[in-house]
């Protein structure tokens, strides 16, 4: 007769509960803490609606990866994958043979497929018209990358290596796919912390930016009304993505995957003859990739690498990067305001920190608080989309130096 007691004992011993309690001092406590963090992130995504489309997936990926014995994600496989002295170095065969479901998902991050496809969707959803009608917006998009490089320098001072500091600095670009693209290449062990920091701060833009905007601009300047920009022809909108791809990819070839996909998406939107493709890029493809990207990034949040002092430093440096990028954009806005004799409202500079269209909306809201008849949204969209190109160039530069 079957020994029921033995069966139940085996069942208990093979359970995750037994693993956690049996290894409490040797990593079990980390699993428990990470499960609490995952639930906290789920709360932020669902209840507080912090970038819910990504945060819910990241949090659930974190939850899955920290359930012991599930075998969904294997940190050690990816450590070996990156170790030049190991036989599994850069071997996707080993990953496919020994990996779990989230390891397979993560291949898309490692190969940069997901960030690039997300960029394609972003391109298909973006109207570059405001940028084309006011090309000077590009200067604000450049100025707003200040936080990237100051945070990079700050990270070096705090003891991070060059590639790690570059990955942390790019949080200041306020562009999730770019941050994931660069980090997965330069510092994959920090991917979870950097992605969570980047998306959390993007969700907190309406809280982070207004105090900086009020501090760095005068009440009088915030009331400035900007004149309507010229209408942009269809031909210009079609030529733009082709021109930018050629120009930027020749200038910084490392940005070619990101800029190429961004502009392919935009071209599909503007041509008027590829509506089906544009629709797929904006909706179905974007949604599928968001699911795969968010869960696989969440899966990298393993207790042993996440519960470190480095994560806290990343969180602090991330907010510094965001704040300084906003400040850089506003300083650029102030300079432009003075040079044009008060024709440019400096608030639009804050929108240079990518985060389309949230940052532009914040500029519009703060502008309207100071002057209810002021509508800055379209003017702020110029620096906003310029910021996307600017952060991709910044990422390309850092990749060319540290890659």
């Amino acid at each position, binding site marked *: 007769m079957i020994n029921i007691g033995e069966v139940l004992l085996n069942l208990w011993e093979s359970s995750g509960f037994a693993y956690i309690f049996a290894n409490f001092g040797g990593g079990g406590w980390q699993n428990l803490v990470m499960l609490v963090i995952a639930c906290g992130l789920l709360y932020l995504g669902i209840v507080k609606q912090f970038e819910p489309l990504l945060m819910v997936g990241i949090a659930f990926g974190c939850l899955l990866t920290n359930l012991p014995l599930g075998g969904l994600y294997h940190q050690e496989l990816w450590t070996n994958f990156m170790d030049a002295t190991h036989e599994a170095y850069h071997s996707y065969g080993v990953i496919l043979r020994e990996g779990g479901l989230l390891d397979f998902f993560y291949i898309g991050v490692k190969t940069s497929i997901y960030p690039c496809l997300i960029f394609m969707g972003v391109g298909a*959803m973006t*109207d570059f018209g405001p*940028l*084309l*009608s006011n*090309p*000077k917006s*590009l*200067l604000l*998009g*450049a*100025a707003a*990358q*200040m936080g*990237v*490089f*100051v945070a*990079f*320098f700050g990270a*070096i*001072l705090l003891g991070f*290596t*060059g*590639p790690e*500091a570059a990955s942390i600095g790019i949080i200041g670009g306020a562009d999730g796919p770019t941050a994931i693209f660069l980090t997965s290449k330069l510092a994959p062990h920090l991917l979870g912390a950097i992605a969570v920091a980047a998306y959390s701060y993007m969700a907190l833009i309406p809280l982070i930016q207004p105090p900086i905007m009020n501090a760095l601009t005068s009440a009088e300047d915030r009331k400035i009304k900007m004149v*309507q920009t*010229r209408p*942009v*022809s269809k*031909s*210009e909108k079609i*030529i*733009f993505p082709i*021109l*930018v791809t050629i*120009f*930027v990819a020749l*200038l*910084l070839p490392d940005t070619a995957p990101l800029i190429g996909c961004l502009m392919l998406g935009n071209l599909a*939107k503007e041509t008027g003859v590829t509506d089906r493709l544009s629709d797929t890029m904006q909706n179905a493809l974007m949604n599928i990739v968001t699911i795969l990207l968010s869960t696989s990034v969440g899966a990298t949040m393993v207790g042993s690498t996440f519960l470190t002092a480095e994560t806290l430093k990343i969180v602090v440096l991330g907010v510094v990067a965001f704040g300084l990028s906003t400040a850089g954009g506003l300083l650029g806005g102030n300079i432009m305001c003075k040079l044009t004799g008060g024709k440019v409202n400096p608030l639009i500079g804050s929108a240079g920190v990518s985060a389309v*269209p949230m940052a532009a909306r914040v500029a519009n809201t703060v502008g309207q608080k100071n002057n*209810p*008849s002021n509508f800055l*949204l*379209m003017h702020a*969209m110029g620096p906003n989309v*310029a910021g996307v*190109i*600017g952060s991709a*160039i*910044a990422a390309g*530069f*850092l990749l060319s*130096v*540290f890659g």
Partner: protein
Amino acid sequence: MLFLTATTGAVDLVNISILNAAIVAVLGYAVVFFGLILLMCVITALGKFFIAKDAKAKAAAPAAAAPAAAAAAAPAEKPTAPGSAGQLKLHDVEPKTAAMLMAIVADKMGKPINELRFISIKEVK
């Protein structure tokens, strides 16, 4: 210095020194500006080309239209509604939606709608 040592391959970019990090930071910021300024020049040139092209097309249009206009009397323009402040251009926006938007804007600003002038409404996609 970063440049001097980089050419010999001796610079350690993993454990980068503070001086080299400062150089990378300044250089990176400068490269972003350089790239976007160049792009701005290209876009400005593109814009000027299209503005000039539009101006040429507009200048040619009245000349071509003049004989035709003489042959057929131009249809009378529709009178604007009483109290309105001129024509409103709609781009990819239904008149119903436009009316709703104008009402919301007037309400938010606390001003009567006939005291506001809407020039154009465009859907931001």
